[in-house]
């Protein structure tokens, strides 16, 4: 065995790992909250600040909670996906307007369309902390008992929706 081949051998191993690494997403962190009860919140509504939306009101149905903000670029990217999903009516989407200005958020929804049933306002970002939000957008699938079943970090895409979220939602709705 040629000992001068050792560096090449080691390099091949590293390249192998790097190649596998390319197919993985290091930002996709498992959330410790998956399988646990969704943190409760009770917040003013964006369109009607006098009214409050509480997570307790949403029990008994499968729903999506989407953290977004008007200042967030990724939210713009996923927005058509959300609109499309809302139009299909397969699952209700509730919005969480995260660390945002009210008028800017309203303007944004007016310009790009509103996929949400109701939007809650989390201006100080407290609820975001409870949910362990790294950055917006993030989306949670919550079941009828109020348990988080799935967490999507970063923008939703049609393929994620088709392969992961919608099958999960259908299964949860049957339960």
């Amino acid at each position: 065995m040629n000992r001068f081949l050792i560096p090449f051998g080691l390099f091949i191993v590293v390249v192998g790992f790097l190649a596998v690494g390319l197919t993985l997403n290091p930002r996709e962190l498992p959330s410790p909250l998956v399988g646990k009860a969704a943190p409760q919140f009770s917040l003013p509504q964006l369109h009607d600040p006098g009214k409050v939306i509480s997570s307790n009101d949403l029990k008994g149905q499968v729903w999506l909670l989407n953290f977004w903000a008007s200042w967030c670029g990724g939210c713009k990217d996923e927005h058509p996906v959300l609109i499309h999903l809302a139009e299909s009516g397969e699952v209700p989407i509730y919005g969480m307007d995260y660390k945002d200005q009210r008028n800017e958020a309203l303007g944004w929804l007016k310009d790009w369309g509103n996929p949400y049933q109701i939007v809650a306002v989390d201006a100080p970002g407290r609820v975001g902390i409870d949910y362990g939000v790294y950055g917006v957008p993030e989306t949670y699938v919550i079941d009828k008992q109020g348990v988080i079943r799935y967490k999507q970090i970063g923008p939703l895409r049609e393929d994620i929706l088709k392969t992961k979220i919608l099958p999960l939602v259908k299964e949860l709705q049957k339960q």
Partner: protein
Amino acid sequence: MIPEIGHYALILALCVAVVQGTLPIYGAAVMNSSLMAVAKPAARGQFLLVLLAFCCLGYAFAEKDFSVLYVAATSNSQLPLHYRLAAIWGAHEGSLLLWMFILSIWMVAVSFFSTHLPDAMRARILGVMGLVSVGFLLFMLTVSNPFERLIPAAMDGRDLNPLLQDPGMVIHPPMLYMGYVGFSVAFSFAIAALLGGTLDAAWARWSRPWTTVAWCFMTVGVAMGSGWAYYELGWGGWWFWDPVENASFMPWLAGTALMHSLAVTDKRGGFKAWSVLLAIMAFSLSLLGTFLVRSGVLTSVHAFATDPKRGLFILVFLAVVIGGSLVLYAWRAPRVGLGGGFAIISREGMLLANNVLLVAALGSVLLGTLYPLFLDALDLGKISVGPPYFDTVFLPLMTPAIFLMGIGPLAQWKQASLPALAIRLRWAFGVSLVTAVAVPWLMGQWTPLISLGLLLAFWILTTIVVDLRERLLQAEGGGGIGGRIAMLPRAYWGMVLAHCGVALFIVGVTMVKGFEVEQDVRMNVGETATLGGYMFHFDGTQQVNGPNYVAARGTFRVTKDGSEVTVMYPEKRRYFVQNQTMTEAAISPGLLRDLYVSLGEPLEGGAWSVRLYHKPFIDWIWGGCLVMASGGVLAVSDRRYRLAWRRKEAAVPATAQIARPTVS
């Protein structure tokens, strides 16, 4: 129109690079001098074309041409001109162009300063560099074109990341890239030597100045990156073991090992295969750094926007360049033969041990950096590797390395006597030991780590004193001290200076780790906090409008023993376009300490949460790096290299150079 010219220039540059990467290497193989002669003009032509492309992109930024996608993505009409120009390398595409531009600068430099090389050698070197540039130009033209149009044009740009809107950004990346890419020269020399089968002392002598210059840039570049993190991120730290920091640190370690290994190859003919391998490693790690930053396989604060296509391209490029080189190495290196034999206790032995320690340190950084990826790839869970790991593995590896660094220069080549060395160094060790114990004790806080750090720093300094004294006493016919000093070659002084730099660096790190104090306080307007003997008086904040941000600027009057020391103005900025808040720390630097104030969050009633730091000797960390780099510059200015460049023949006997004093 201008961006299209730039784009076209890149395409032409690619064509030239293909010619440069093939004909001269083939010419060298068949000894056809007219084919070999293509290398020089091709390298220069390529430089002009890339320069043109670079200027075109600069023009697009200066003229705020938001119909260029890259310009629209990384600048804004409100961004000041100097940052618009720095935005050329503010993201992926442009930084590649900078990479390429610097590679072409190095190529031109090689084409000018290689007249003393044999034609075949020069042709191969420039050919290999041409092949590297083919890879990068293809990468740019296929998946990362900085001149891509945005039609219709954006009304305004998305602005440069506020983190990068800093004077450090203007100079740090070019410096670092000069280092990264500079190792491509040492790499090309090594590959050329492997191709030609002429791996000898002359090869090492030619490579040395190039390696040292690249290493100097690298040293300054890494130090600037660290300094930038220190004052821009507002956490008060100077090194985070972030994957991207590691990516710049690994080639530096390899380059440091390479410089020392080349010294042995040059002077004693030994370590040939090892030097070649290190040259390949240094550049490979530069490429790996490029891959890690741009492919998104690791999470990092610095990572560029990621794109799997780009990651795949660089990975394939990496595999071809590094894999090809290593196969060539495995094929050719066994025939190189060994240099002269040497005993374990000898200068060669110590340099070898140091090299092994440096490479082990490099390996541990590489392992720590890639470990999360390895685990993830094997589906063993997600982890991150942080400072505790790196600190733990680094200290035991660096301690013996630095101990040897003190002895090495005093040891004879080939065979040294351990008892004789011990006698020569007994004072140095005694003085270092006493100082290392006494200083922290006098400063009122003693821990083993502080003493160890100081011991190492003083060990370097005292061994240098011993070495200098011996050499000056031995310098014959020098007459006065001035003449004797002039008799020692500049390369030697360069080494002394660089080693002093390491000592300063260690002092800085030790003192900061041992004696830094920090405080996280809530401060109302008019309140005072005391830290490290300084009183910080908070006078409240004011709103300040910048060109593209609005800031809350705090005013802190700092007094010590009743007299005013300085007034500090930390800021919390909000940049409009990306709606990002940035902490601009205020730093009052000093030779013996830095005061560091950064604003946290606003609290009710004009109060703020504030972070205060007193950091003793922190500037020595970067000062040490600068001294190291100046040592490198001094070494490169040594007479033997100047002689080599002036004459066609490099074969001046080594003794003749040392015996003749340089006139100063």
